[in-house]
């Protein structure tokens, strides 16, 4: 009985979060990914997720939220590639 209740609460929590509530964190080295490049990438991907960027030591931590499941699989990697290309073009 308790197990069933636990299961039910888990399902409810999942339903509350919704299918679009995927999050991901990406860490990029500041030496290779300058702020301007990340800003450009953030603007380019803004329609796919909510993106937060903050600096943590020698890394920039990029937090993605509100992504669809399909986007969550590729978005951080695509973001990193885009930022790298921006860095190369800007350099």
């Amino acid at each position, binding site marked *: 009985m308790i197990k069933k209740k636990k299961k039910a609460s888990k399902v409810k929590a999942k339903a509350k979060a919704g299918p679009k509530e995927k999050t991901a964190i990406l860490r990029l080295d500041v030496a290779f990914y300058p702020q301007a490049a990340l800003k450009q990438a953030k603007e380019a991907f803004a329609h796919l997720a909510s993106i937060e960027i903050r600096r943590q030591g020698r890394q920039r931590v990029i937090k993605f939220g509100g992504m669809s499941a399909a986007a969550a699989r590729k978005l951080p990697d695509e973001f*990193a590639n885009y930022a*790298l290309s921006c860095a190369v073009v800007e350099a």
Partner: protein
Amino acid sequence: MNPTIQAAKNMVSIQVDEKVFPRDVVVAAAYIFIDRCYIRLERALRGRVLARIKGKKKLSRNQLVNLADEFENELLHQLIRRQVAERTDGLREVIVGRALFSAEPESGAEAAQAEPQEDMDYLDDPLGIAIPWEEKYGDDKKEEEGQ
């Protein structure tokens, strides 16, 4: 530069010595692979750069090894490009400078010819280009037909 193959992650990691391949060379080499791989670059210990290359499509172990080899070749290619660019920097400046200098309009007769005549109007038609063919040659043709 021993590549580490992680077949389960569809990824290969390569550590590059910055003393041999400067940072901009590594970035330029990584950029070449951006269309078929996901690339992450980061600083590693002892002046090295760690390049993580992940296939966009699922790759076999052999393909990952080939990918690592291609990346190493590309590093060399970019290094040579850089060296050649450094060596021919002065020459390029001379060529561009000369090209720009020769593109300037010369003073004197040529310059005067190139300038548009100020008393000309856009409605003027000294060569009679705007006159219809009938007006220009119509009478001749009629005369020819009459003969």
